[in-house]
């Protein structure tokens, strides 16, 4: 702690230690923090002056950055990556199968056969549906997790679960935990950014990238891959740089004069410094989002310039540029708003998934290939998936729409310490329920934290009388079998 000024969040040093380390061994943490200059006066510590100073994780990390490609609405696993040959001939037949979706608990349903054929790709021979001809070629870099489960098959609570580990609103999101645990190495950019679909945000909006009970500094910053990247990054009056610089120089004079007799208050000097950081952010962020500086072959790798893929392609390309600039956690949404504006295919799976997969297949493949050829994939963890999957059965008596399914669905991960060319876990032969290697969203979160160098069961934040953890009081182990 700095020897002067107020404490972090108005709490004591003891609480603060608790906050960061309540879950893990106090002294070891203290020693670690002292090594990292945590408690040296004026050193990098998550204080009021700078909650985002860079920090070391518990141990050496496999991944430095995370890109979470969020397929909002819930993509159907049996139509994408979880090949179920026995499901095709059952198309249209009503059979006994237990399902739980938005349409409630059921004991039987009409099978909707998968609407796409699957082809083997790469050395692994992974079967990928024809929805993803580009992504299929990256199969050898990917681990497919077929046995994911979540606590709720309803969008509202399931979104909160995938993003914050709990179906109850108010918990910090995964990116906030990363931001809190690691700080940000590039002070000129936010450490945790979110890119949304042009149709709108996901349901619950900002709750999906909230910092919950943590300070606002740890929340996700929404950025745009075109136009002004961040809220209030550009002066709303279009003030010229020279004007602003003049203003800031004089502001500093006034603020330093004010600080003269109040030098003990580090928050004042912190605030003076924050204007310089803001100024640098104004320079850095537009440079980061300037995709025009990218060569043509890179742009076309991501599908830029093509009407279907331009939008998501820009976001994926921006994600790579942000990784290069030290942004820790990047979340990109495919799909927004409601109904068929996202992957929520209740009435017509063909129309819905053709649209969303077609918009994202080439950009995502481009991202993986680009990261790989730049040597960034090893240290960048890429995650793909939605808040749940979809049922093998129809919800209504007519149509090819599928209801929600949280009993078993597919997510995949690549890079950042993940094996390539493998699959983990299985659903039953209909794709209805995870039957082998059943996992919970908490295992996914634990894996992410683990790869970033944390013990997921020890990264804790003291709030409400409890050492809160992303993996909850239940705790969770990383998925060891998929680690490289």
């Amino acid at each position: 702690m700095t020897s002067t000024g107020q404490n972090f969040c108005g709490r004591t040093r003891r609480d603060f230690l608790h906050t960061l380390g309540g879950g893990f061994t106090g002294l070891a943490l203290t020693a670690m923090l002292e090594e990292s200059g945590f408690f040296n006066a004026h050193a990098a510590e998550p204080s009021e002056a700078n909650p985002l100073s860079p920090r070391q994780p518990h141990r050496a990390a496999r991944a430095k950055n995370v890109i979470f490609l969020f397929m909002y609405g819930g993509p159907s696993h049996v139509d994408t990556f979880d090949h179920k040959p026995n499901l095709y001939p059952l198309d249209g037949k009503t059979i006994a199968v237990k399902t739980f979706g938005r349409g409630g608990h059921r004991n039987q349903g009409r099978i909707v056969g998968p609407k796409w054929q699957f082809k083997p790709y790469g050395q692994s021979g992974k079967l990928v549906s024809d929805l993803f001809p580009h992504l299929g070629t990256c199969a050898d870099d990917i681990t497919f997790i077929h046995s994911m489960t979540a606590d709720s098959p309803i969008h509202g609570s399931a979104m909160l679960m995938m993003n914050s580990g709990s179906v109850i609103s108010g918990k910090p999101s995964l990116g906030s935990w990363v931001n809190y645990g690691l700080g940000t190495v590039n002070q000129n950019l936010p450490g945790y950014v979110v890119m949304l679909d042009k149709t709108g945000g996901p349901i619950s909006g900002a709750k999906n990238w909230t910092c919950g009970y943590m300070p606002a500094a740890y929340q996700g910053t929404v950025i745009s891959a075109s136009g002004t990247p961040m809220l209030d990054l550009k002066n709303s009056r279009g003030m010229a740089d020279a004007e602003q610089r003049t203003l800031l120089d004089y502001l500093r004079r006034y603020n330093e004069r004010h600080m003269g007799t109040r030098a003990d208050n580090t928050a004042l000097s912190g605030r003076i410094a924050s204007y310089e950081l803001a100024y640098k952010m104004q320079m850095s962020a537009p440079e980061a989002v300037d995709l025009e500086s990218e060569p043509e072959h890179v742009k076309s790798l991501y599908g830029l310039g093509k009407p279907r893929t331009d939008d998501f392609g820009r976001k994926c390309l921006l994600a790579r540029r942000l990784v290069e600039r030290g942004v820790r956690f990047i979340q990109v949404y495919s799909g927004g708003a409601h109904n068929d504006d996202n992957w929520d295919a209740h009435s017509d799976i063909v129309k819905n998934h053709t649209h969303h997969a077609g918009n994202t297949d080439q950009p995502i493949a481009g991202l993986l290939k680009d990261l790989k050829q730049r040597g960034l994939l090893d240290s960048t963890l890429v995650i793909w998936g939605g808040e749940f999957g979809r049922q093998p059965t129809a919800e209504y008596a007519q149509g090819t729409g599928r209801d929600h399914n949280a009993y078993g669905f597919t997510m995949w991960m690549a890079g950042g310490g993940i094996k390539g060319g493998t699959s983990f876990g299985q659903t039953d032969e209909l794709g209805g329920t995870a039957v082998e290697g059943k996992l919970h969203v908490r295992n996914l979160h634990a894996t992410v934290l683990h790869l970033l160098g944390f013990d997921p069961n020890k990264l804790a934040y003291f709030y409400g009388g409890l050492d809160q953890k992303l993996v909850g009081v239940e705790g969770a182990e990383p998925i060891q079998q998929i680690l490289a």
Partner: protein
Amino acid sequence: MSALFNTTLIGIALAAEIGASQPLAAVVVRPDSAKVEFFTRQIFPLLKENCFKCHGGGEKLKSNFRITSREGLVRGGDEGPALNLVDPDQSRLLAMLSYKDRQHQMPPDKKLSPSQIDQLTQWVRMGAPYDGRLEIVGNPNEHLPTTTINDRTKNYWAFKPIVRPVVPRVTGSTQPKNPIDAFINHKLAGKNLVPNKSATRQQLIRRAYFDLIGLPPTLEEVAAFEADKSSNAFEKVIDQLLARPQYGEKWGRHWLDLVRYAESNGYERDGDKPFVWRYRDYVVRAFNEDKPYDRFILEQLAGDELGAESPDPIIATGYYRLGLWDDEPADPLLARFDELDDYVATTSQVFLGLTMNCARCHDHKIDPIPQADYYRFLSFFADIDRYSASRGTRSRANLTDITPLVHRATYQQELDDREAAIRQIAIDLRRIEDEVIKKMPAEDRDAAAANDREAVIKRRFNEFASVEQRAAADKLKQRRDELLKKPEPPRDFALSVNNCIVKPPSVHILRRGNPHSPAAEVLPGFPAIIGTPDPVIPAAAPGAKTSGRRIVLARWIASKENPLTSRNIANRLWQFHFGRGIVRSANNFGHIGDRPSHPELLDWLATELTDGGWSLKRMHKLIMLSQTYQMSSSASAAGIKTDPNNELFWKYDMRRLSAEEVRDSILNLTGQLNLKQGGPSIHTEMPKEVLATSSQPHNAWGKSPIEEQRRRSIYIRVRRSLPEPLLKVFDFADTDSSCDVRFVTTVPTQSLTLLNSKFLNDQADALAEKLVADAPGNLRRQVQLAIARASNRPASEDEIADGLRMIGDLRGRLKLEERAALSRFCLLVLNLNEFIYLD
């Protein structure tokens, strides 16, 4: 045991509770120096490296075992004494270190080397001598469990009855006039510290204005106070501030943070809470009327059971309806208990400073709150029906007609008849639909049975219904539409609890908190640690609309005898005047919370509060008239050296303005602030980038007339999924649970907002316009006024010169028009540290 004496205690170790047993028979021996040296050189580094982190060297005391002192070793931990001094080789310590005790292998990560174990064995055989200078000695009771309920745990500072403390006499000086100062100065004297000198009158009045009304004084008000030489000059300032309606807005906002006030439900639809603003206005009114705090408690927890004529107690029960509500839960029974948990968590933390919610799934891990106590506490709320039985956000359980009785009487019968008719139609219609649904395929039948009945009926009713069924349904719908179209009498509603469950279902302890696994039944009861006998719930009177349980709980909480309630609110009053509570963890007085820095002062304040009839305004005055409140915030070398964190209050802590104060002060400075009070919430101009984050960008937010947009921040709509960006970036409270202490962060995004946002640049223009109007043609005067009004003090020559230089620079070098240059200067003024910080 003093760490200074190079002696050790040898005794027969007994793990017994201090106070419940005789002191141990002890023999003091002087160990020979060679043994101590062996300890110092060989053993101590070994223990320090391998054992200290979990057993007393840091925050942890695992298994209540302290290895950092000899007394700790002798005493042992949860498993028993660590040493066997009669037969040292049988010592538990050695069994654990050698991994022979398979349940307890220490250190758990890695077994010590054979030579290390050998050294430790030798040491234990010597009688385990310790070097007193190296000992870390803990609290004498640290190893005793805090979770059991007995005389010792009842004596914990927060649980024991409040006895009005004697005001300390401060030596060497006359007794301070205000007892608060006696408590503070007494502690300071113990550390050879002296309280800071007084703040200047200008600093003091600015502090008082922001603390009480959240707005700064005018220059004239500052000047008048500086000129007022009467002995009660400051008292007069306080009195007039407490009488202003803005006081309730400032202090009501503190309360809204605590009770998780928001105006939408969260989750997928994030639906609006109807008439929730009446609760906000009620809170503002309660503070302005100086409603006694005990009454304030009764109204919020059981206003519907008070039998009052005024609608205020009904509105107050909106307290229960402010939280999250999932309109489409995956597990409805669990959702019901989540709702009840919200009441338990909020009520116990906000009114009592207890984290009862930690005992939902198991006994509280730290505090003496058994799991049964959680469910006994929960059952007080068991008569509150769910927020709504359907996805509709208005329900018979959450709305109450609060139209004055004289009006209500004229239409009530007609309305009741009409509602009964509509209800009957719904039943008839549903019966027909059920018959039709039976004819549908299984998928549609199932969908209708779950969440999608409406969708199924809409899609397929006509297809499967017979001609007669269609005709019957049409007729019913027509009749219903006619009834619905009839004009309604003008009525006022309050978000509240209503139509409660008169005979609530039995409440059970839930195994691991799982509502599908009920265990023993429990009855309503208070936390046993406080020792109040179980209440008798009076039988509900005929026609009652509640079970009568909540009023019993409310009376217990709102009692002078309850040791938690008055301590809790006294602490909050202190917190909101000084920036931190006497107990920093204001929502958690339990063992994992912070200890009071001044326990006697806290108890004294608590008794002052209850003796003064629970008047909060009286307490503000008492606190603010203390020398402690009026101290300067400047640092002293001695203070910084001895008490850098100001634990003892040797100075007043500077503070940053809250989010609302920042925004309101800006509007105030530019002359645009609209002080209109109350009513439905307003919509500020939401940036399109923020709207785009909503799943319904076009319906997510409204647009208020420009005059309305300039009202105080407490009136801005609070939508859970769409936080107002200016307030959020300045650390507005998270609304999903009670917020007792707001963060105060300093991050570059705040600077971006204050430099670049449309709101700030509009306000800079407005300030420039006002300055030109107030001092036409006099740029120097304009600059002078801007600085003076922003800092509430006269501008210095240097400051004026800098402002003029900046404007000259912008005009000359950058060719700006005079007004534009002035506007830039105004933007600078709105960004000044002095504008955002209080001395």
